[in-house]
């Protein structure tokens, strides 16, 4: 149910600037390190702000209290959150919201979307989607799922054998599962004979919608993070002197930096391409979202790994930024599904489109 058109560049640039401005001020390196060391509640503070500024409703249609900017607006938000490695349950909550928009139906949309758009509540979703779902017995569901989302999320959007359900977290036993990436919350959600608050009966469409929303979110987050740590690394290389000169002057390192810049340019276009195909609701939108996630998260792992190395000794310390981005990149890489599995799905989608006599490679001139 995406808007069948794309937004103009000025609107998008204005959005990017405003999000970037707020995050640069509130979620700089110092605040982020303090958060990681448990010295502030940056995640809560940012979340409250995000709700007030309308960020959490960017992808939600206006009739449900959002701004109706679809995948394009969301990609900008996730890209900027990635740039600052911002903590908070954005991928889980915003992807759950997009899924509800697509397959939730009127009643569920009306119940949940306005509260999600305002930041009043957050949501949890399975960290990987190819896991065994909850078991359903009559109207009740049971089982344990490892989820992406905050411990105080209002609900979890979870698969059962034949549908997806929205379950109140008050009915769940929630255990935090601390990750190496401290900017993300992962939780184990255990349910025992819980009664769902809502049912999304089209399991396949719901799974596809959540896969696509998460794929676009993770890809945008990775592209933003990769660009940011590359910029920080190059800035460092210009100040770090060895052999009587800034190490940024050494050709061996310049060439690596140029290769990183090239990877970033390609990654950005992969995200934009997938987002645009989603905005105009093309039959190949799923294919490009799956590929954007698999390609861009791997590029981001490469880039963040190289940024640790390009920093030298300090790149391996807790006090510098590279490890934060590297850890976030590694978690992004494995979310939704293994990239090999995503590529297998993409290959199947490509074959289906091609066999039907269409092209998956159309591009506007």
């Amino acid at each position, binding site marked *: 149910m995406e808007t069948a058109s794309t937004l103009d560049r000025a609107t998008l640039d204005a959005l990017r600037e405003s999000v970037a401005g707020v995050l640069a001020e509130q979620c700089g390196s110092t605040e982020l390190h303090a958060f990681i060391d448990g010295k502030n509640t940056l995640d809560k503070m940012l979340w409250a702000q995000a709700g007030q500024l309308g960020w959490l409703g960017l992808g939600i249609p206006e009739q449900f209290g959002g701004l109706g900017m679809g995948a394009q607006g969301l990609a900008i938000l996730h890209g900027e959150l990635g740039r600052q490695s911002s903590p908070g349950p954005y991928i889980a909550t915003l992807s759950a919201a997009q899924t509800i928009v697509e397959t939730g139906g009127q009643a569920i949309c009306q119940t949940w979307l306005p509260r999600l758009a305002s930041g009043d509540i957050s949501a949890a979703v399975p960290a990987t989607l190819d896991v065994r779902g909850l078991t359903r017995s009559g109207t009740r569901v049971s089982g344990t799922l490892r989820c992406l989302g905050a411990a105080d999320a209002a609900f979890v959007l979870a698969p059962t054998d034949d549908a997806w359900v929205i379950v109140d977290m008050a009915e769940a036993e929630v255990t935090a599962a601390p990750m190496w990436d401290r900017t993300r919350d992962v939780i184990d959600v255990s349910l025992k004979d819980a009664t769902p608050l809502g049912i999304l009966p089209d399991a396949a469409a719901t799974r596809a919608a959540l896969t696509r929303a998460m794929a676009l979110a993770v890809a945008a987050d990775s592209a933003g993070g990769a660009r940011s740590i590359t910029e920080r690394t190059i800035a460092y290389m210009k100040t770090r002197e060895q052999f009587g000169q800034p190490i940024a002057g050494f050709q061996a*390192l310049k060439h690596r*930096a*140029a290769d990183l810049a090239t990877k970033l*340019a390609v990654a950005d276009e992969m995200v934009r391409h997938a987002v645009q195909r989603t905005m105009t609701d093309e039959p190949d939108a799923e294919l490009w979202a799956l590929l954007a996630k698999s390609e861009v998260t791997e590029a981001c792992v490469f880039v963040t790994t190289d940024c640790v190395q390009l920093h030298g000794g300090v790149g391996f310390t807790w006090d510098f930024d590279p490890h934060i981005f590297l850890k976030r990149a590694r978690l992004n890489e494995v979310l939704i599904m293994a990239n090999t599995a995503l590529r*297998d799905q993409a290959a199947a989608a490509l074959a289906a489109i091609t066999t039907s006599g269409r092209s998956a490679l159309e591009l506007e*001139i």
Partner: protein
Amino acid sequence: MSILNAQHDLSAFRQEIRKWLAEVVPPDWKGRMARASNEEYIAFQRWWMGERSKVGLAIPHWPKEYGGGGLSQRHLITIADEIARADAPQNRLFTISLIHMPGTLLPHGTEVQKRRYLAGVAKGEVWCQGFSEPNSGSDLASLRTRAVRDGDHYVVNGQKIWSSNSMYADHCLLLTRTDPNVQKHRGITYFIMDMRSPGVEVRPIRQANGRAEFGELFLSDVRIPAENMIGAENNGWRVAQATLASERGVISFEGGERQRYEIEAFYRKSLKVGAAWLRDAQLHREFVSFLAEMQAARRLLRRVLEESETPQASASVLPSIVKLSSTVLRQRICSFMVRIGGVDGQAFALLAEEPFGSPMFDFLSAFSGTIAGGTNEIQRNIVAERGLGMPRV
């Protein structure tokens, strides 16, 4: 009839081109060219230029006052896209004539030069480029071919290399050293050289892919009239930047689109015949990754075109980034084709009839992308220094 008559309606313009291509492009041209001698290939290229000329598509990108079509970039992109879609021949023999020569003369040539030389191209005049020398490749500004003033002429001595199609060229865009006693960029002068001048000798260079597109130029006491100078004496380096920048345009876009149609045709055929590689999950994954990179590369090429019409274009490193990503991708795709092609894929064959039908030829040819037009190593320097602001030491 000129297709340009339909230019006011872009989709009608596209249909006209498509119709014309369907009529004019010989279906078996690739097969014929795969077996053709150099002479047959050249004759074919001239024929193709003649056909384009008949419908107004020889020089559609030039200003009207110099005989061109004065078309917008959108039109040029449409032409390139249709030519790629139809798998019509490239204008390889005329690349320098159509792209580099006007890219240089339009901003820097005299009115007399523009009138005389631009008009010649529509009649089939072939140009080549005399830039690189055996000892001046990546370090182009160190070139040593000497030009010494002698009355109203310059006398040129030296050697040029990697000059595409110079064996068939009528004119050459030539860089020479006129002042050896100043900083290397400041003593260079740019000339138009008549390739039939006494003292010009051309020897073809056979490439690793079996073809001989390049030539080596030996220049002994070649006399060039002073009026053939482009720009001022010792200002040739600046003029040369215009030549190099002209490669960034629609020509690379066409290459990207060609690859799209090629890879799509290859994939369709693979599905149809149930090719063995489709049953290998890892190869299949690699293939879809290529497609993702290819779409990104095509989008980047569009951005370069968009940017080329803005004032910031000359300072942008995006063309270098595009070259780095798309030439390496081409190499990897061709390498993939060699791997899945088995022993048959390495059977000796030039220019394949089918897309990727001679994988080894395509793989070897892909080096022209990573080496020609400024090696990828030079592009990395450009990206790092001009784009990322890393210091030059």
